């Protein structure tokens, strides 16, 4: 028993060490547990999704024109993939001091107005965004559950046409989740996207 505990501790410290050394997740990395406040005031943790096949994590916000352009597509991803075992979590890490439109109160208002059927979490300390290596909004991380772990399967943009959904012919997130659902490897596991930089706090 003692030995098991020790092993767990050792594994944990190794994970911590690893997390300390690599400032951001790459495809294949195991994501550390996080717990953040949702717009309904309740805490949501990654481990709450232990019975899902995976999670679509999107760093997003209220104010960025790219986030606005993608808002309908983000809602559609949630509607399409939550029932298939890939629920969506949106996280806003923007500092409200720098971007007042991204305050918690504004998040609550947006989630209500848009009828979000997915959690919209506030990353007040910006630690989760930093751990993920999120830089833009919207910035997507598709996680696949592997036992008790969640592993990064895709990082990047939603698709290849921010301006016009109809003209997007590479739907990266859909392709990634469809592939995972079919037990196949993700065709494109990493993309980049121009977006609004996350508004980091002044330190």
């Amino acid at each position, binding site marked *: 028993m003692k030995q098991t505990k020790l092993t767990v501790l050792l594994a944990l410290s190794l994970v911590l060490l690893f997390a300390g050394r690599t400032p951001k997740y790459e495809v294949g990395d195991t994501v550390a547990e996080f717990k953040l406040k949702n717009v309904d005031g309740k805490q949501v943790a990654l481990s709450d999704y232990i019975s899902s096949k995976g999670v679509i994590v999107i760093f997003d916000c209220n104010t*960025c*024109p790219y986030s606005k352009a993608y808002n309908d597509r983000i809602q559609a991803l949630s509607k399409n993939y939550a029932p298939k075992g890939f629920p969506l979590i949106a996280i806003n890490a923007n500092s409200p001091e720098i*971007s007042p439109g991204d305050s918690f109160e504004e998040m609550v208002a947006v989630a209500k107005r848009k009828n979000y059927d997915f959690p919209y979490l506030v990353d007040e300390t910006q630690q989760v965004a930093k751990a993920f290596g999120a*830089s*833009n909004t919207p910035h997507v991380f598709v996680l696949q559950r592997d036992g008790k772990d969640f592993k990064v399967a895709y990082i*990047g*943009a939603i698709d*290849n*046409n*921010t*301006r*016009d959904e109809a*003209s997007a012919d*590479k739907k990266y997130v859909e392709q990634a989740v469809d592939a995972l659902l079919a037990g196949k490897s993700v065709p494109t596991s990493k*993309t*980049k*996207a*121009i*977006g*609004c*930089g*996350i508004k980091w706090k002044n330190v």
Partner: protein
Amino acid sequence: MKKTGAIIFIFFSFQYVTAQTAVVKFDRLEELMNSKSDKIQVINFWATWCAPCVKELPLFEKLNAEKKSNIQVTLINLDFADKVKKVDAFVAKKNIESKVLLLDEIDYNAWIDKVDESWGGAIPATLVINPKNGKRKFVERELQEGELQKFLAEVE
């Protein structure tokens, strides 16, 4: 009164014509990046909706206004191409004199690595290239006063 109206109309139409932003494809940016001229290319990626970009624009404008014979400043605008009039209006309102090109390439992953592999995709971002020695400097963040001069010295 009619006269004032006419003058205002002429004033605005004049401003509109002078501020017209060229909408370009990636090959135009590639030309700048592979320029064989003697001029150091200072290329800034920005958008009208990006507050830190707008905040740092005066640094580029100041450099451009110095009219140094060995420096060329280009502001690559990343607003959506259907918003070019908004860009024109912005350029006119802020009296921007540097060359502004709207890069109409929405499939970012087709070109972003060609600018710099380290670019995560956030703006503002700035690229300084010295064609004479091939030295380049790329940064993906808002610049502070004096930093451009530092980069220029680095690529000398």
